[in-house]
């Protein structure tokens, strides 16, 4: 029992109540999947323009956000590293997505990550805090994780995990946009979209490393992005996931976007010269029917 649950219990006991664990029900029934997954790949040195044209290839942000929606944009802000070091999502990519979400009529855009290094240092040195502050828009919030917001969720279709604590705002969002940065990872080889969603779960994440690929797929049964945008503007090729040396970074000026989280990861894998099935989470998610991983079955639009 962690401190928070303990407290919770103490309060309940002192209030003379019995302990009930609140559960959050998430529908895991999938909407009919289209036979081909569409995927856009953009290349440009102007990251604002890059995001814009890549989204345009998927009919623009309006295809993913309706006016009045509560939107969560989840970049990787896990490390106390600068944008050049390629450990976090590039601030300009995040900024462009936030702007498009606002244009599409989002009522609220929340940006956050459960960081690995000290939270304030990550938000600050990733450049994301200052960039978003610069927007001066009240609808945009970059909040630090509030421990009280993790709620237990049953993973009905999970194979390796049956329950997880998930951040409430993600579950309640109308649109969840996952924005990982594409990079190397010692254990799982790469960290892409499915791995990025680990930033919305509570508890001891280190315990997930056993059978990580399956667990990430299990998580993906309930945390289902409306859109995945993989930031491969800079790719960390070695010493991931946090890097630190610019020698390990390759500038690629690329982003990949798709409504299909598995397809996005699968395609990004090829940028590293690997095959989609070499990434355990991609394979496991494909097996669970969460998306397409065969590159030939994808409808790829290059812009």
């Amino acid at each position, binding site marked *: 029992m962690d401190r928070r649950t303990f*407290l919770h219990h103490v309060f309940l006991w002192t209030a003379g109540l019995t302990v009930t664990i609140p559960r959050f029900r998430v529908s895991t029934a999938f909407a009919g999947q289209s036979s081909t997954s569409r995927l856009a790949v953009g290349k440009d040195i102007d990251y604002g323009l890059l995001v814009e044209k890549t989204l345009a290839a998927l009919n623009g942000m309006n295809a993913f956000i309706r006016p009045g929606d509560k939107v969560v944009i989840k970049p990787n802000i896990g490390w106390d590293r600068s944008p050049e070091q390629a450990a976090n999502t590039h601030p300009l990519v995040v900024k462009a997505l936030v702007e498009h979400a606002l244009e599409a009529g989002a009522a609220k855009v929340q940006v956050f990550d459960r960081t690995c290094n*000290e939270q304030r*240092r990550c938000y600050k040195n990733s450049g994301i805090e200052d960039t978003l502050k610069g927007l001066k828009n009240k609808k945009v919030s970059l909040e630090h994780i509030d421990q*009280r917001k993790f709620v237990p969720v049953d993973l009905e279709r999970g194979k390796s995990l049956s329950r997880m604590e998930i951040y409430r705002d993600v579950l309640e969002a109308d649109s969840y946009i996952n924005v990982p940065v594409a990079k190397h990872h010692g*254990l799982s080889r790469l960290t892409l979209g499915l791995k990025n969603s680990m930033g919305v779960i509570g508890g*001891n994440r*280190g315990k997930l490393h056993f059978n990580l690929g399956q667990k990430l797929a299990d998580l993906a049964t309930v945390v289902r992005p409306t859109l995945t945008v993989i930031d491969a503007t800079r790719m960390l090729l070695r010493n991931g996931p946090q890097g630190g040396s610019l020698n390990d970074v390759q500038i690629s000026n690329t982003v990949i976007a798709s409504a299909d989280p598995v397809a996005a990861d699968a395609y990004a894998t090829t940028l590293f010269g690997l095959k989609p099935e070499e990434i355990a989470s991609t394979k496991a998610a494909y097996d669970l029917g969460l998306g397409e991983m065969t590159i030939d079955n994808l409808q790829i639009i290059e812009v």
Partner: protein
Amino acid sequence: MANRKHIIPLSRWRQLSQAVCLLLFLFLFSKTDYTGSDQLEYAVNIIFRFDPLIATAVMLAAKSVVLLLLPALILVALSLLLGRFFCGWACPLGTLIDLVHPLLKSHNPALDTRFPRLRYGILAFLLSAAFFGLPLVGYLDPFSLLVRGLTLAVEPAINHAATSFFTFTYQKAPALVNLVTEPLYDFLQATILPFSQKHYHLVYLSMAILATVFLLELNQRRFFCRNLCPLGALLGLLARFGLMNGAGGNDACGRCTTCRNICRMGAIDEQRHIDMAACTLCLECLDKCPRSTIIFNWKKPLTLQTGYSGSRRFFLGSLTAGALLPLFTNVRGLAKVTNQRLIRPPGALGEKEFLSLCVRCGECMKVCIGNTLQPVFLEAGIEGMFSPKVDSRLGYCEFNCTLCGQVCPTGAIRELQLTEKHTFKIGQAFFDKNRCLPYARGIPCMVCEEHCPTADKAIKFNETMATNDRGQQVQVKQPFVVAELCIGCGICEHKCPLPGAAAIRITNAGETRSPDKALPVASAGYG
């Protein structure tokens, strides 16, 4: 100060000054934290640099002039001029004691200071012990005591209470209540609450020591300042030989003892003479004297100073004790073999120098964003209590952080530049292969490798076959540490997902600050 009634009583000005100083202190305390820039703007450490007790003890212990502590001369000069005003007008601990006094009033206030010689004995003992190699001044220095108590116990407890309360309202109270409580919580977080919940060893001990200072009020007013405070004793000595003089009552006072009865320091004797070694110039007597007899001025009185003149024997005894006790420190087992888990903060000086300079103020533990700096109990000997150590299971040292070196008031932890910090070895990680999952049970893990922050990772891995729990051969990545790259930041030990002790642990082997702990190198004959 003139001999007349003032429209605003002089003691009001003193209270104002006390309030301003206390608020300033608390402001600096709360700002002793990372706030978005690598370089700190404010820190409480400034008050330690004005503390002549710390300056004297530290320089005696280090046997050198510590430039950082020279501002203490300002307080020395001011005290020669104005007496022990600091205790009455500025000291945050004194102010807090005055504030709690109404709650802890004793029923039969003793007019005479209970142990009038004790504080001099303590002062003599601390200074002589410091000189002979047993640095203990931080235990009783009022600022150290206060900052440490607030850091290690009071602030975390307040934050915990607030978090618990607002977690309860958030999860259980109706939405209507949350309309009020949530903005309130936001406000408190933005203002007085610390950014994150910290956890410390020795919470109860720190709390008990601080609480005792206040509880002693039950015995007599300003008990700590009158009987124990070594800084007060030192400032009192300066005051005695300084210029400020208080002319108390005279024969014409008759049976009136108003001044004597209200003096919080017991500085006024039966003849109503004022002992400047005790008087903190609170000026209550001056305000309340019905005949307006009391005057403070810069004239030296013709009569000899009243008040306590230290008994030579007690004083010498304390000095001798301070000189003899350190003899025993060198014959402890500790003098030969140090505790391998005594890992000092990045930038800490060599152990002996470090302990001479460290004043146990707790500033580094307050500022440490990794919550890894923890007070030592007895691992470093009796003189090491409350000095900082790195507890890598509880927290870890942030790769890009240099805050502890910035707040250390004496330079016991020197300020490292970031590039130097990146290679400054505070210790060394070792795997416990009997527990490490990929080794012991063939289970993939490598959380340590993932978090290792050095640009060329100090944890690397081999992909090999291992035996799992069922006796099967499985392919797994097994991590290992490269000694030359590891800096001992401890994030690996902190994040290791095993319950209880981690399967990778830091020791102080190879630490940069102690050449004698250098790790064996293969090329140097260890092959």
